[in-house]
């Protein structure tokens, strides 16, 4: 068999400059201010006065090439073929011609492609693979996301919340969605220790690495059988052992489910970046529409919409009214799981007489 062809390596991504519309090339680094004209529609005004119009469209993130081609068709029609995606997986059509904005909006409406995600509202949910592609999920990703966004749709197409509200989902503790700093985080969790498949462990795992992988030292080697044993009381189901060893699956239809976290944020505004905190430790997986999960999130959003001051993020709202009132307002119950007992637990214990009733 003759010389086989291999593509060039290490060429890196194409240079972004070739993908920038002229108006951006001309005003690169010279923007003066912006305005959100209506949900999903922004104008950025350059020092020289040039105006760039952006129309933001929601997308499911998991999309077929057919849809990408459709977005292209739209972009050719209204944007001279220029568009981008956002850090939260929305599509942004970039227009230099104001007169094309309304026609574009009408066109998108006709195609049932939602426009919004700007300002004080909800934008697309950052999420991960789940049952569609990954091997460690404790829940699905796309299903719960679709169910939640259907419920919260009004907040995507309108800007009627006190502040930005960012939701993210990760289907296991690896947290690929980096959900740990979200206003509302949906996290798949296991509740049962790994199931040890001795010969799989024996065949395909390096016992020392597996033992070392456990943060709580729950794994003991079992040299005789060339496998491992897990101390059930020490295991908190993180799944790190399974990542290292196919012979230790944790997934379980009844053990697995979803936990809800609140009050995280990333931006350095006001209170600064913060981790999300546990709101609900467990909700069972209930496909296809995870009604209990959706209801819980709706409750949080409603209480936030009702109680927060303008510009307050969820965590800032809770900080002001106090976690006491968060649990009161949402009706969620405070459980032993809510009290930290991991490495830095002490920092979370309250050491002041300052609290609410």
């Amino acid at each position, binding site marked *: 068999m003759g010389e086989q062809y291999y593509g060039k390596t290490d060429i890196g991504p194409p240079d972004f400059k070739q993908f920038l519309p002229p108006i951006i090339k001309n005003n690169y680094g010279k923007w003066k201010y912006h305005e959100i004209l209506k949900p999903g529609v922004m104008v950025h005004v350059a020092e020289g006065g040039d105006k760039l119009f952006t129309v933001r469209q*929601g997308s499911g993130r998991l999309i077929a090439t057919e849809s990408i081609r459709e977005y292209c068709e739209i972009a050719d029609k209204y944007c001279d073929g220029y568009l981008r995606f956002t850090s939260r997986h929305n599509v942004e059509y970039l227009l230099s011609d104001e007169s094309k904005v309304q026609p574009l909006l009408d066109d998108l409406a006709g195609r049932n492609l939602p426009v919004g995600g700007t300002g004080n509202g909800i934008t697309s949910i950052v999420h991960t693979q789940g049952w569609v592609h990954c091997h460690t999920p404790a829940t699905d990703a796309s299903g719960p996301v679709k169910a939640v966004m259907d419920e919260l*749709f009004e907040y995507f197409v309108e800007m009627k919340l006190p502040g930005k509200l960012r939701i993210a989902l990760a289907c296991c503790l690896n947290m690929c969605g980096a959900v740990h700093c979200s206003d509302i985080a949906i996290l798949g969790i296991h509740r049962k220790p790994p199931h040890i498949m001795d010969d799989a462990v024996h065949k395909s795992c390096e016992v020392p690495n597996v033992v070392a992988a456990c943060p709580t030292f729950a794994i003991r080697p079992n040299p005789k059988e060339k496998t491992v044993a897990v101390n059930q009381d020490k295991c908190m189901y993180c799944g790190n052992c399974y990542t290292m060893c196919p012979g230790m699956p944790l997934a379980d239809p009844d053990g697995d489910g979803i936990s809800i976290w609140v009050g995280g944020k990333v931006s350095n505004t006001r209170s600064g970046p913060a981790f999300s905190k546990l709101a609900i430790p467990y909700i069972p997986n209930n496909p296809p529409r995870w009604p209990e999960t959706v209801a819980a999130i709706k409750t949080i959003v409603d209480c936030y919409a009702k109680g927060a001051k303008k510009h307050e993020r969820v965590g800032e709202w809770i900080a002001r009214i106090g976690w006491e009132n968060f649990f009161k307002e949402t009706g969620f119950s405070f459980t032993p799981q809510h009290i930290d007992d991991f490495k830095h637990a002490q920092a979370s214990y309250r050491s002041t007489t300052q609290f609410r009733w």
Partner: protein
Amino acid sequence: MPDKETPLLNQLETGPWPSFVAELRKAAKTSEMAAAVITQLEQSYVDRIGHWKHGGIVGVRTYGGGVIGRYSDMAEELPAVAHFHTIRVNQPAGWFYTTEALRTICDIWDEHGSGLTNMHGSTGDIILLGTTSEELQPTFNALSDAGYDLGGSGSALRTPSCCCGEARCEWSCFDTMDLCQDLTMEYQDELHRPMWPYKFKFKISGCPNDCVASIARSDMSIIGTWRDDIRIDDAAVAEYADNGTDIMEECVFMCPTRCMRYDAASKKLTIQNSECTRCMHCINVMPKALFIGEDRGATLLIGAKAPIVEGAILGHVLVPFMKMESPYTELKELVENIWDWWDENGKMRERVGELINRVGMREFLKAIDMEPLIQMVNYPRDNPFYFWDQEKVAEDIASRKG
């Protein structure tokens, strides 16, 4: 059109939000693999459990990453998804495209894969979802011919990403997209050939709003900021007031440093800039009246990551301020220093942030030869358990005696 064999998934085709099931069906029109995925996914919905096996190593020639191997545990019933590997394609900086560029990718993927994608993955790559081992190299070849390359995976540099920055934002303190492109090109080898204890991620935001969430999820987080004063357009402030912005409630009371004062009578807003920590809030509220300073650069933070397995880490301030100008030599030297130290001292699957927490910030700074700075901490230590270099103590004593 809904499928009678997928009663559960069908229920996810209704509702206002774009349906991923509809997307799967679109792909299924031309791809058996996509069709099979629908059937397998329905089964997962019935069983409430995933049906993918623990991943195996697959890839393309001379690369150690860029592909995530995936095999089905239903291969017998569904041979079409026996393989369902993911290819990570490095996105253009800022996720800007022309329709031509996107169509090229679609053409390649329709030919070689399932036609399913994520635009984009949460690291930032173009995710091409689902193909066979055989198709991996041909797909890569086609992408490469079209000017695309793979993104990172495994214990390697991961695909850097950035906010749109100066391309479309008045608040960008440096050229985020140029830096992103530059770092990506400079470190192609680190990106494609895993050689470290674990993964390493760069994320670049033009200002403290941090629109790529870099402070939460990048081992090296680069966030724009400035050193001089916020610029105020008094007339514009008054205009906001006239148009109903409650400046007292929306700005003054919300300023984290409480360094603003507002005189309702004169509609004059004043900022005690020495106390301002450039949190962006007031600027965000009145973008036409308040403007970032002009002495611009970036803050570098180290070690952010998700919780597995020592607990999540938010980036720790390493360099409070660095000018960000091409060719970014100072930044690159620092980064390479850190990589060397981490490579030498990191345990297997230990992120740089975890290593720093294990050995202590003091040790880390000594190793990369950086002076401790107050900006690195929220406050100085509150416990009396600190070490002294015994040689220095001896010198100190001698000097006092001498």
